[in-house]
């Protein structure tokens, strides 16, 4: 059996096993099992890196006969890293929850594996219907993760998260069905081939409507301004592990899908809508940064900073050139690592003081110098300091944006400046100044959790060649497809 198919099914097996095992061992089991899944996912790298432009590890078998729905999965140089990102962060999420999740542990860890099943599925599905199934499957465990183990307003946040995402994805389902009536298949590569051969063509209004239906679903998930209102509630109320996964991986479902579906399937509409979407992205960048500046709650602050950072990703995608796309994919990974690290660290702070208000902290650098250093690195990475990961992503995106339209880059760069303001001010208020009593420094287990993240920040900031060639190659395929070649070059 294909390794990727095994990788996809393993979490489901683990989920069933976790439900059957006695509650006392669930945590250890899920931690071990998800590390095993991570190890399996690393085995994918070799083959995919050799031919990152095409799909590798493809499994393509019939699932349902009428209508023809295929179990078609595969990864290329870009989606591979998102699959590995998921498999990497699930064990991390399980690991950091040891202190925070004290009741109903069994369910919690089981849901993590169910979530992993959905996430891997989203990133490797090549059949529109299959993809939609995984897209929705992700909602259920996340709903429970927020709703059961979240903060005070958890039920409100969980419901809002679920209903928003579901409403967004319903129009996508209509669009998928419409494409099926046109193309006679749900298979993405087949549809693209039909389009290249001219067998399937959408009229301009048709394409625009379909584009918008997909876009809306993904814009909610990313989220793109002004569809972001569920995010601060969900991020702030969720338990640390869930916030980590939402910020790092679930938001990437949206941006990845924009790349995989909107840009691939509807190049002309992407081109036509690019100025509007970029405008929304830039508004999001600046708006997110400004709101982050005045947030008194740390989790909300980082949540709004996420809106700002994700605006960059969208900007890169709709710049429609190699730099922009490469930067966008790279930034998806970088944002996952740096924001993930920030949420983990904030989770540790919350454990220590049972508070998320910045005002309750101050001068932590004196009692907890290691903590302060680690937090500083994460902060600087998030700001985009050279040699750290976000710099590379944001640089490439701004480069791409400048190629498309210099004004886009100019306005977006405002976000970089603002991120330095809010993050450093946040750091100053929390860690610098007069000490306000004792606080435990990083514990060994906490070191263990943050070290891989810190190493990745450096690695991604310095050795970009590990990741970028594969990403570039897969983006190149999109840019050089005859149907999209001219369309995506955005006019000045």
């Amino acid at each position, binding site marked *: 059996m294909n390794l990727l198919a095994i990788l996809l099914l393993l979490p489901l097996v683990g989920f069933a096993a976790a439900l059957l095992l006695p509650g006392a061992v669930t945590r250890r089991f899920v931690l071990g099992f998800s590390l095993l899944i991570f190890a399996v996912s690393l085995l994918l790298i070799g083959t995919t890196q050799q031919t990152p432009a095409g799909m590798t590890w493809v499994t393509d078998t019939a699932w349902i006969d009428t209508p023809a729905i295929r179990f078609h999965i595969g990864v290329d140089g870009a989606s591979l890293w998102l699959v590995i990102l998921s498999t990497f962060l699930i064990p991390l999420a399980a690991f950091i929850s040891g202190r925070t999740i004290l009741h109903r542990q069994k369910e919690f860890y089981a849901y993590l594996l169910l979530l992993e099943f959905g996430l891997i599925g989203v990133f490797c599905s090549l059949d529109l219907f299959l993809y939609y199934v995984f897209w*929705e499957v992700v909602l259920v465990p996340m709903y429970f993760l927020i709703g059961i183990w979240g903060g005070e307003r958890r039920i409100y946040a969980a419901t809002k998260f679920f209903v928003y995402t579901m*409403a967004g994805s319903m129009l996508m389902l209509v669009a998928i069905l419409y494409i*099926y009536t046109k193309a006679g298949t749900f298979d993405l590569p087949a549809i693209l081939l039909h389009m290249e051969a001219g067998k399937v063509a959408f009229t301009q209004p048709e394409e625009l409507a379909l584009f918008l239906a997909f876009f809306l679903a993904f814009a909610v998930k990313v989220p793109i301004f002004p569809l972001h209102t569920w995010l601060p509630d969900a991020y702030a109320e969720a338990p640390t592990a869930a916030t980590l996964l939402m910020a790092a991986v679930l938001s990437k479902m949206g941006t990845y899908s924009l790349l995989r579906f909107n840009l691939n399937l509807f190049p002309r509409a992407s081109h036509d809508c690019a100025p509007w979407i970029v405008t929304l992205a830039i508004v999001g960048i600046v708006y997110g940064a400004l709101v982050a500046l005045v947030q008194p709650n740390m989790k909300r602050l980082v949540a709004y900073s996420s809106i700002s950072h994700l605006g960059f990703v969208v900007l890169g995608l709709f710049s429609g050139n190699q730099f922009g796309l490469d930067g966008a994919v790279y930034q998806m990974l970088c944002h996952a690592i740096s924001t993930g690290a920030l949420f983990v660290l904030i989770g540790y702070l919350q454990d220590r003081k049972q508070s998320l208000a910045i005002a309750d902290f101050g001068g932590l650098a004196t009692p907890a110098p290691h903590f302060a250093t680690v937090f500083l690195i994460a902060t600087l990475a998030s700001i985009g300091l050279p040699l750290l990961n976000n710099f590379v992503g944001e640089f490439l995106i701004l480069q791409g944006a400048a190629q498309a339209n210099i004004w886009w880059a100019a306005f977006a760069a405002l976000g970089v400046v603002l991120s330095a303001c809010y993050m450093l001010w946040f750091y100053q208020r929390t860690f610098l100044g007069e000490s306000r009593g004792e606080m435990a420094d990083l514990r060994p287990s906490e070191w263990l959790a943050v070290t891989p993240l810190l190493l990745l920040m450096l690695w991604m900031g310095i050795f970009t060649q590990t990741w970028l060639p594969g990403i570039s190659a897969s983006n190149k395929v999109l840019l050089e497809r005859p149907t999209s070649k001219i369309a995506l070059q955005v006019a000045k």
Partner: protein
Amino acid sequence: MSPAAFYPTATDYLRFLPELILTIGGVLLLVLEALTGDHKDKSKLGYLAAAIVVGAMFAVPVALANPGASFNGMIVSDGFAAFFRMVTLLVGLFTLLCSTSYLSREKANTGEFYLLVLFSLAGQGIMAASNELIMVFLGLEIASISSYVLAGFLRDDKRGSESALKYFLLGSFATAFLLYGISWIYGVTGVTNLTAIRAALAAGTSAPSMVVAAAALMLIGLAFKVSAAPFQVWAPDVYQGAPAPVSGFLSAGPKAAAFAVFLRIFQTSFDSLSSRYEPVLWILALGTMFIGNFSALWQSNVKRMLAYSSIAHAGYVLVAVTTNSNVGTAAAMFYLAAYALMNYGAFAAITHLAGRHETHVTIDDLRGLAARQPVLAALLTVCLLSLTGVPLTAGFFGKFYIFKAAIDNHLYWLSALGLLNSAVAAYYYLRLLAAMYMYEPKTTDHPEPVPGGIQLTLWVSAAGILTLGVFPGLVLDYANRFATFVK
């Protein structure tokens, strides 16, 4: 016609076997009920009734193996009829399984209940297989009159009596509409056989306005029976007031049978009018979805919420009916089968949780269920997620096929609005999930064990939901094969 041709043959009876078994079994139960003493435990009669239903289920393939019209074309045994017979019998079986413990709890365990269920099932079977308007009417009446009594079975319960009375008055009113429509059609065409009506209309000798009026009258009657807006007002009161297992029964069984009649009449006899009634059905479907879903948002009583949700689900099926196509019919069939599983599963759980005299039926009463009875909560969750339409459940594929049929038939707006409706619906199903999983239990009493019959119902429906959620072809292929009518 010679007398010899008039008399039914043995094959005619085989084609009618499921209903025969139900009717004879019902009469047998009636006698047995009279013979057992008043103070004896009547649960055994319930088990016997369940066995009779299982027997009728085995008779369905027998009837299907002898396809064709019987009793001079009044009844037709085809795959479509077999499908709906099976669905209604399944709902009936669930009802019987859940009722024995319920009736003992309410101290109303008399045998009449079980035989009324059997008679109602016989009526629904006739509806599913009738090819003739008088048979439609007979089947509908047999099913309805038994249902009226079932709704008010707990005589001392005021709500139950109110529910039964409302159901009876409004139901009779609707039947009158249907009957009036039938008489018009008979007046215009001189026939009551569905295919003969089709032929008569195709001949074009009848006044079009009269035919349209007749079709409209019948549409109103059937719309009432499937609780389509604006004829849905009875449903919430009836489902809320009726005993919980009966509410589940009413919301799944008779409704499926009424849809069977709906599809058969409108696609066989009135096919030529489809361009006229399509806009009407369009509005009906949309209105039903909207009213059902938006009213359900505010309910705190779970039974009432499920009643509104069942209105909304009728709206989804109406979308399939609106398409007036074989794909749509197959989608409606699949949906009604899926709906029978998920909705009865939900009602089965409520039957148990409601407690004596059904005092615990608000959403708050579900609080902390996951901590107290994790298995029951998990099974109910499967049903609710399916009702929401989350992938890998039967409910998702049901919606998927319906809206696929709608898009195939260019009903884009209806599909978009309908699917957005299901996002609204997610909100109220989530309220139940939130109550079960995200709140602390209200009491610390030891929870009552779930009776075997209810457990079986829940397991069967959850297993069915998940199986159809991964392999929908099991039912859909069948539905696709038999979604055509003899025309």
